[in-house]
């Protein structure tokens, strides 16, 4: 019996891994094919002549002096992975066109960013100014994406022209990182302390800190799209998002060494929200004979979303959490309806989102499965 379970686990773990790898490979291939089509979409061959110089630089000629020069294609690290930028400059290095040709940012967020205004401002600077840094201010509320755009311009230009740049590593340790470390430590302490009163104090303190700071102030939970971005090979820029590595690494390490999912228990801001709602409505744990089936549905859903996003090569496609809707009031109408249902449910049953819908539950369950297999 025990042997049988072990084999079953092995099949599940490796099966999922194979599916993810296949989906990622397929998605990558599709992306490469579309590159040339993308340029031609902006510069149709009837009016323009394009000639490939290298992977990042194309020569452009046409009757219009403004639209002849170079095209650079570069990538910047956005919130959910790469943002591909196409810059067209005239012979003086002035930017005449600046386009985002592909991005993996979640559409509902992306549209909020007034990106068109930003692009206009960004194209008023010479392309050379991007080599040394960020010549214009990032759009507040879209810092990562605006930085990604500037990074994409720099990346295309420097790679296309073989300009050497130093990309030094300076992980910044700010308030956010401090809070995350504190929450991780509190989560670990909870595993060892037996005194109920102290446990309760620590748990509620960290829940409220997470609710307020990770939720409302920074709005930085772990989201599925970021996991997919990593699976897709796009690691967030450690210079700006050191916190993310701390959060994800800490949570996974905690599972490996203590078997406990401290992220969901006491760090996730939306779990904190549900705890508060549960306290308000005196919610009870929901027991149903279909519990297992609902759980498989939840995990299958997560896997499906991951595979979908990998095949589309677009991590944003895996986004279905309601964090944004709850903490920042961003998201589609459907997500708001879901959020409404979840909030009402949370008043009566304990943590409905975590138990029946949250994708991170599946991700951490998978990590724990691997851990259990190896430790045996």
């Amino acid at each position, binding site marked *: 019996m025990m042997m049988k379970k072990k084999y079953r686990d092995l099949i599940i773990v490796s099966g999922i891994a194979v599916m993810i790898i296949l989906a990622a490979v397929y998605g990558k291939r599709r992306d490469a094919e579309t590159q040339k089509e993308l340029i031609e979409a902006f510069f149709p061959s009837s009016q323009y002549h394009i000639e490939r110089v290298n992977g990042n630089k194309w020569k452009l000629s046409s009757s219009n002096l403004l639209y002849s020069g170079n095209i650079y294609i570069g990538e910047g690290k956005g919130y959910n992975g790469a943002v591909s930028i196409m810059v067209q400059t005239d012979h003086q290095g002035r930017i005449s066109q600046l386009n985002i040709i592909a991005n993996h940012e979640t559409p509902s967020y992306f549209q909020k960013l007034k990106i068109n205004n930003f692009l206009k401002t960004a194209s008023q600077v010479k392309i050379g100014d991007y080599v040394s840094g960020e010549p214009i201010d990032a759009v507040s509320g879209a810092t990562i994406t605006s930085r990604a755009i500037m990074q994409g311009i720099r990346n295309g230009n420097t790679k296309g022209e073989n300009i050497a740049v130093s990309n030094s590593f300076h992980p910044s340790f700010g308030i956010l990182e401090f809070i995350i470390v504190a929450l991780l430590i509190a989560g670990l302490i909870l595993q060892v302390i037996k005194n109920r009163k102290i446990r309760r104090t620590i748990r509620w303190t960290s829940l409220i800190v997470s609710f307020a700071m990770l939720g409302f102030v920074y709005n930085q939970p772990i989201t599925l799209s970021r996991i997919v971005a990593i699976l897709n090979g796009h690691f967030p820029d450690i210079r700006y998002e050191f916190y993310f590595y701390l959060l994800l690494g800490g949570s996974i390490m905690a599972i490996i060494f203590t078997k406990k999912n401290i992220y969901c228990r006491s760090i996730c801001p939306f779990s904190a929200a549900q705890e508060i709602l549960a306290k*308000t*409505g*005196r919610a009870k744990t929901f027991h149903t004979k279909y519990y297992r089936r609902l759980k498989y549905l939840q995990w299958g859903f997560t896997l499906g979303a991951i595979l979908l996003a990998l095949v589309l090569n677009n991590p944003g496609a895996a986004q279905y959490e309601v964090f944004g809707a709850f903490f920042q*009031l961003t998201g589609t109408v459907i997500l*708001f309806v879901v959020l*409404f249902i979840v909030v009402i449910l949370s008043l009566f049953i304990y943590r409905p989102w975590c138990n029946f819908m949250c994708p991170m539950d599946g991700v951490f369950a998978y990590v724990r499965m691997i851990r259990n297999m190896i430790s045996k």
Partner: protein
Amino acid sequence: MFPNSTILGPLFWIVMGGLYTISFTGFYYWITDSIIKMNWWKWLLSILWFLGLNITIAGGFTLFGEKEIRAGFWFLSVFGGVFIVLGVGLWRLLTSR
């Protein structure tokens, strides 16, 4: 409120006053007929909740009246949601013990 009449406005508010009185009396009877034990702060919270709900609805509809439809819906759903949650919490508080 009633642009072509000077009397309908005051009448409206008289009727509204009546409605609030009746609903308060009705609530009082519900409470006294049930096992719920009320005290001053429970009364205060209940009244504040109902007042807040009124203001939320009036606020949302004021925005509708200003042709700010989107803002009105946002206002109603965000604060309405908050008031539903508070309402459940308040109910649990009233019925506790």
